[in-house]
């Protein structure tokens, strides 16, 4: 039973995962940074926004490039000696949540401290939502996105909508 102070919408989530080999991270980052024309998030949980692209570090050597809906994917030619990329854009959905009740709704979904610096606006948190791995993107004071596997999307959506 969603309150009037909470809204929920679902969209596709174009996404590319890139990863450096152990030992080539520095070179990989310089080359990726140059290709994208922007800096990269330094540590896991940080994000960098560049126009319609959100770059998220999801593991020490792994980044997600999340595209705004409808945006053109950047052309990436990753040197196979430095790392690789794989498209994950078909298999994820993006829930957009907003409203004054968001912290209370999320408290029944994920064990993330809404007020901690690690989940402040601009941060990304990978966590468990009813045993399903999700990525929380804190988009604002009272808003966030949840990136979730497509196969689980309806179960999670029902859970959120019943919240």
């Amino acid at each position: 039973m969603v309150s009037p102070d909470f809204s929920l919408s679902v969209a596709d989530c174009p996404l590319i995962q890139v990863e450096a080999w152990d030992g080539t991270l520095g070179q990989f980052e310089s080359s990726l940074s140059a290709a994208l024309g922007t800096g990269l998030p330094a540590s896991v949980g940080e994000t960098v926004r560049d126009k319609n692209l959100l770059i998220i570090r999801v593991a020490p050597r792994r980044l997600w490039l999340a595209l705004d809906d409808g945006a053109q994917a950047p052309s990436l030619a990753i040197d196979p000696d430095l790392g690789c990329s794989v498209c994950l854009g078909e298999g994820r959905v993006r829930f957009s949540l907003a409203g004054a009740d968001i912290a209370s709704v999320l408290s029944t979904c994920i064990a993330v401290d809404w007020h901690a610096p690690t989940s402040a606006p601009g941060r990304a948190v990978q966590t468990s939502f009813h045993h399903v791995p999700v990525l929380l993107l804190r988009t604002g004071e009272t808003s966030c996105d949840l990136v979730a596997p497509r196969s689980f999307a309806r179960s999670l959506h029902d859970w959120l909508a019943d919240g």
Partner: protein
Amino acid sequence: MNVQNKRLPGGGRIDRSYPVEFSFDGQKMAGYRGDTLASALLANGATLVGRSFKYHRPRGILSAGPEEPNALVTLGTAGRREPNLPATTLELDDGMVAESQNRWPSLAFDVQSVNGLFAPFLSAGFYYKTFMGPTRRAWKVYEHFIRKAAGLGRAGTEPDPDRYVVRHAFADITIVGGGPAGLSAARAAAAAGARVTLIEQDFLLGGQLLAERSDGTAASWLNQVEAELKSFETVTLMKRTSAFGIYDGDVIGLVEQRDQVGPPRTGEARQTVTMLRARSIVFATGAIERPMVFANNDRPGVMLASAARTYLNRFAVLPGRKIIVTAANDGAWRTAFDCAAAGAEVTVADPRAAPPAALVAEAARLGITVRAATRIVDLHGGRAVRGATLAGPDGQFEAACDLVCMSGGWSPTVHLTSHLGIKPRYREDIDGFVPGAFPANRFGAGAMMGNYAAADAIEDGHRVGVEAASFCGKSAPAPAPSKLDLGETVTTMLRDVPSAQRGKAFVDFQMDVTTKDIELAHREGYESVEHLKRYTTLGMGTDQGKTSNFPALSAMAALRRSTVPETGTTTFRPPFTPVAIGALAGRATGHHFKPFRRTPMHDWHLANGADMLEVGVWMRPWFYNQSGADVNEAYVAEMRNVRQAAGLMDISTLGKIDLQGPDAATFLDRVYANGFAKLQVGRARYGVMLRDDGIVFDDGTTTRLAENRFFMTTSTAKAADVLSRLEFLLDTAWPELRVAVASVSDEWAAMSVAGPKSRAILAAAFSSLDISDEALPHMGAQEGEWKGRALRILRLSYSGERAYEIYVGATAGERLWSHLLEAGRPFDLKPYGVEALGALRVEKGHVAGPEIDGRTTLDDLGLGRMVVGKRSGFVGDVLRRRPALLAPDRQRLVGLECIEDGKRLRGGAILFLPGSKAHGHGRGRITSVTFSPERGRYVGLALLAGDVATEGSEVVAVYPMKAETVRARIVSPVFLDPQGERLHG
């Protein structure tokens, strides 16, 4: 409607402008907002509120808090019925329906209480002696009778219509207890800059301050501090919330009751469980008053002294007019003073020869009779106490009374602090247990540390609040709290354990354990506290012995002629107070019990007559009801269609892993038992992985998409395990290998077209692709695009027929599925479900989950030939050669064919040799069965001892669950097309 004849005309923390109606055992009664059910019952003059557990003795209200052992009621009706709730903790709600427990036919007249009918059966050790020894068969005789006689309330049998929620929360500091110490700690910690959550089980803050007059200094202190706390945005006050357990990681389990007053809001939870993670915990849990032990001390009208004072000052209820207060400490005298001031006739019986002169003088001023060196030895009255026998310096005498207030001293509430294994420590000066040494981030304050006086608790709380904040790195200056001196004096308690009573003297009221039971346990050698507990069931009630623990320990210590610390205490475990299972489950019930995975074609299946089946976490089509009336008819029809024309199967549930890197081929060569390094680009290979111990782990196919890129599929069930295992090997064993693995299970919708017409169907569906046998041979792969989405076609077969696995971006899955069905319509392409899929693979002799069961080797499964030549260095290679895994009598895969007309084989049947007794584990078992349209009979796969697994001979399959015995012939597990010609058909 009862009149509130025990309610005083003024005072208390009740809202007289807000009258509330409720019913107890069908009788309408009235109370006020701010009452508990217990205070409202007392106000209405109800003294008898329940019957005891074993002896069905009449019981009244003993306490005013969660320690209540007697006044347990059942609340609500139908699906909302909830038993065993202490009336002392229930906030009175308009329309509340409460029932007493353990009585038949009525509370006032209970058949089973006559002469303690069952008493001889229910003495301590009865269960042990009767049911654990040579006479244990007696249980069968007595069980029905005991279950009927004993037991507490009855739960509802209908589904609970209410909503429960589990939530997560975080704080710098959690403070458990909203009495003077907890409030003071919260105030200090918040002032220092910490984020604080304060937990209070009551619906009012204040703890023992609520027993003080509602218009005095305690009340103004309370108002001031509560206002201060509410001024901090960083303070969360959780009332009506019980901390039921402390768990590893400084996680506190909380259960919060809905605000009982007013109608429920839509969607509001009746109870909410909060798992609160805190950096620091302050325990300010207070103390629980101890009863005194004398004959018939359980009569209705016997109350803890502090409880009587709480009912008087907080609820404006004077529960008696002729009161005996008995206590060996100064604190209880305040109950006598307040009751006398409210107009009661009060006698104080103090076992001490010379109670303090100041108390005696104040008593004299209030007209209280003081009897020094006097104790109660017996009580009279059945459903309500009528009088007492007292023993004083001049011998025994009788005194009339309608209320007895007792205080055997105080026990700090150390339950929660003990949950993580911190043993309580005995403090001689207070004759009680306080928490043992805390780790650096946990603190205790106030009465729970033995600092009983409000002034001390406030000071203690402030100090600890500052320390806890400092632990969290918050150290802004916190101004000292206002002083509150209630003038309580705290004296060393005189311990009071008289023996040789005339009647039953209760130690544990809820479990009906008396001093005689403790004596019996001692006599029979159950002296250790843990044995005492189990032998007598002491402390095993829903109240967890909150009032009984210390009196029992001191009784046992006296019998052993040792001290209380030598006797020790029992272990306290969660939950501190009972928690409904429904609250712990929260919303995870029904379709929310676990999240389901749905394939991209899920909605199509539903719309087209699929009967869905839960397969692990996935929902899969079991069969399509267009194929037949039931599953048995449908799967055979679906199989026939695959063998004769073509079938379409949703295989999106397969685990799919993307592997890339310069060392990907080397890596695969190590993780699969069969080699992959030489696999050509554009070709797929069936692979089997072993565990380190040489047992088969999983199977699947891996396709080489490019020199350094592979596409792996795993079984549906093992997808997560395989990915995690690959990551484990890369992170811990071979970090030098440059390989990236990523799950792409959700990326791809996957479907299989199988059957002799499958190539024609693909040709029709993908006009731009070359799917000739030259371009796409068996075990070949092609990549392409369909409607702008990535497409992969692998020519692989699970059913034994010519077949293609088609992978497309998940968002296009349903469109491609429909497109294929459309293109396949002229070729009789029809969808089939997992039942037919399983049957097809059994007929073809392919092993799957039932055979790859964590116990079988490659050789057991007939796959030993996959390890070619001198190949070594792969996971599990060394230990798979252990002699026991090579023994000739190990069970190995065989095919079975039913040879009795009209009978069937069943998975799980045990296999015996003809003529041998059908007893024990047999020589093997059937793992998978199907009806084979090809053979016209049931066939199955089985694991059978190698020394008897001779093709052509017979076995007997026994299925004890259905008392079936059927003869079967051992045959090759490949029932169909052993040459594999259909793959190319």
